[in-house]
């Protein structure tokens, strides 16, 4: 395996881990506040759909991103109302959200675009043009042709080449590493990675973080300190929604160009697994999702591993990340202790 291959695998791992990382951090906020969230998958899916839809209708990915955040927030609100306000079962609520997203996205997508739940391709072309035109015409009337064209010309996120990426390339190992692996991703990848130290800082260095962690461990301690448990938990659930929104928007407008039904393909559950793996810690989340991304990238790269005597069939290479996860968990990661008040609605008077 030469350096180039390694770099390409790493590069792929970075892309694959980004939605997992964002979703994992989303789960982290929510669960650290004591609200279990198995609805990550659904929120991501809803975000992917709304982001792609609005991007397709406006030709503007930033509006799409906002819509993605909103879409996920809406489901977060449902989760919050069910599990915080009405002290419902958080697991059921999560399951319901997954179903809801799975059905609504296709239903709405079919209603809006008639493409069987798919959104138009977010690349310049006749399909997209047809959708954007009404908005552009309207914008032209409102804001003039130039602005309208400019505003409707970025239907999807593009990669960002970081400064000096090319000029540093000749530096051995680090240069290509920087240029290949670090540079060239869409903004949301960098946002995701920045979220890790930011989350750490929020959790361990701010008042909000202290209260958030406390409410997930012992909500009564927060309540008796005169801080509203409900508000804290809602805040956490909302943050989870926003992060899922980013994750979904990244899937639909960053990694691919448009929405396809069920496109999250179980990533929400993998993120959940990563969260437990990470023992509900931000840096752990980075490590765990990187591991998942890396394993998948490796399996992608070596679909049929030839071991000389036998060739490992592709089905097993596909399952390899999951098998390895089980082995690693069993061998190296001790018992993961979830936040103590997790999953339990806070009931003070019965």
């Amino acid at each position, binding site marked *: 395996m030469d350096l180039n291959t390694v770099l390409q695998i790493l590069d792929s791992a970075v892309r694959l881990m980004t939605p997992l990382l964002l979703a994992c951090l989303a789960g982290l906020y929510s669960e650290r506040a004591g609200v279990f969230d198995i609805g990550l998958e659904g929120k991501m899916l809803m975000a992917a759909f709304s982001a792609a839809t609005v991007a397709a209708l406006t030709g503007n990915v930033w509006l799409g991103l906002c819509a993605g955040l909103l879409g996920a927030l809406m489901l977060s609100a449902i989760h919050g109302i069910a599990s915080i306000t009405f002290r419902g079962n958080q697991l059921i*609520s999560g399951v319901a959200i997954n179903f809801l997203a799975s059905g609504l996205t296709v239903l709405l997508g079919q209603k809006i675009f008639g493409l069987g739940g798919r959104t138009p391709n977010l690349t310049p072309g006749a399909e997209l043009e047809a959708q954007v035109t009404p908005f552009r015409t309207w914008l032209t009337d409102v804001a003039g042709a130039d602005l309208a064209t400019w505003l409707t010309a970025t239907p999807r996120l593009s990669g960002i080449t970081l400064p000096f990426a090319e000029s540093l390339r000749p530096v051995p190992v680090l240069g290509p590493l920087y240029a290949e692996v670090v540079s060239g991703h869409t903004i949301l990848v960098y946002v995701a990675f920045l979220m890790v130290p930011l989350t750490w800082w929020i959790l361990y260095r701010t008042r909000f973080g202290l209260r958030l962690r406390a409410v997930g461990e012992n909500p009564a301690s927060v309540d008796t300190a005169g801080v509203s448990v409900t508000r804290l938990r809602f805040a956490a659930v909302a943050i989870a929604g926003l992060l899922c929104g980013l994750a979904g928007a990244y899937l639909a407008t960053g990694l691919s160009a448009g929405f396809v039904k069920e496109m999250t393909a179980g990533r929400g559950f993998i993120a959940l*697994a990563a969260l437990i793996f990470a023992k509900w810690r931000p840096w752990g989340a980075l490590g765990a999702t990187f591991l998942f991304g890396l394993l998948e990238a490796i399996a992608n790269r070596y679909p049929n591993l030839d071991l000389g005597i036998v060739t490992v069939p592709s089905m097993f290479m596909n399952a390899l990340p999951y098998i390895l996860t089980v082995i690693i968990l069993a061998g190296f990661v001790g018992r993961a202790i979830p936040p103590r008040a997790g999953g339990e609605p806070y009931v003070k008077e019965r």
Partner: protein
Amino acid sequence: MEKMPKWADVLLTPLISLVLAMAISALVILAIGESPVEALTTMIDGALGSSYGWGFTLYYATNFIFTGLAVMVAYHASLFNIGGEGQAAMGGLGVALVLLSVPLPHWALALPAGMAGAALFGAAWALIPAWLQAKRGSHIVITTIMFNFIAAAALNYILVNLMRPVGSMDPASARFPEATHLPKLSDMALAFGIEWGKNTPVNISFFVAIAACLLVWLLIWRSRLGFEIRAFGKSEPAALYAGINPVRITVIAMLISGGLAGMMAINNVMGEAERLVLNAVEGAGFIGIAVALMGRNHPLGVFLAALLFGFLYQGGGELALWTSIPRELIIVIQALVILFTGALDNMVRMPLERMFLAIRKRGA
């Protein structure tokens, strides 16, 4: 000293929740430009309006009873088994292996043999996560999720490369021998001279599922083992104090859980398809989670919730089949039913409780 009468909690709350869910569903149907009345009548008619509809409703319900019970048993030991999907798939493999390798002359022999194969394979697939949780502290939620993926890959490999008859396009096993086909309920009804549910897949497994409900109820609420499972599920330190072995209970509970999930295969694989196809479980393992939670982890509740989901499945299928309403609408309706009856039930219960309390106060 309850806040409201038990009947209100058990009947009124879910009913009102269900009505709310249906009301919202109606709004969704309106929003996509279809007629809610037509949709509802199609669903009810299609699922409950004829013995034919019932035949399907009960068939799906049978699947959900098994997976629901599976989730439920594990839940009582405070183990969240998300692996019903994989365990049920493996159960299918067990059934197929038994029926294709042992020549069984009659269904009455094939049924117990198939059940054993299904339960054995399902349980085996749950054993590793259970053991890892008990001994190594691996979180059961992760391992069972992973085992779902691994089961899918393994089955894919086995069906495509080992069990598929040569020349067949279909990644599926050969058909099971004629003698092992389970009697359908329609045949059984016919034996009594009743024309019921012709050509519906519901079969004798439905009764096995009901028996499983009873047995699980006996197990959890009447047996010493069930007592231990529940006690362990509520408090591990207390279990130790009482001499209950955590490893033993974890493993046993998961074996039972996996076995129940695996038993679903006698319905869908042995009773309906009569061969093992790819992705035979079709998400029933996940629906089992909703069924168990909505059924409040009680076999009777599981049974009722499974019926409800059977109804939604069949009614929804009819919608998709016979109207222009997209089949995804059913998923939305399912979601709303789960949400309102399962997670938002307090929204209904709290005002009801207040109402009953006020009535009692006035009465007192």
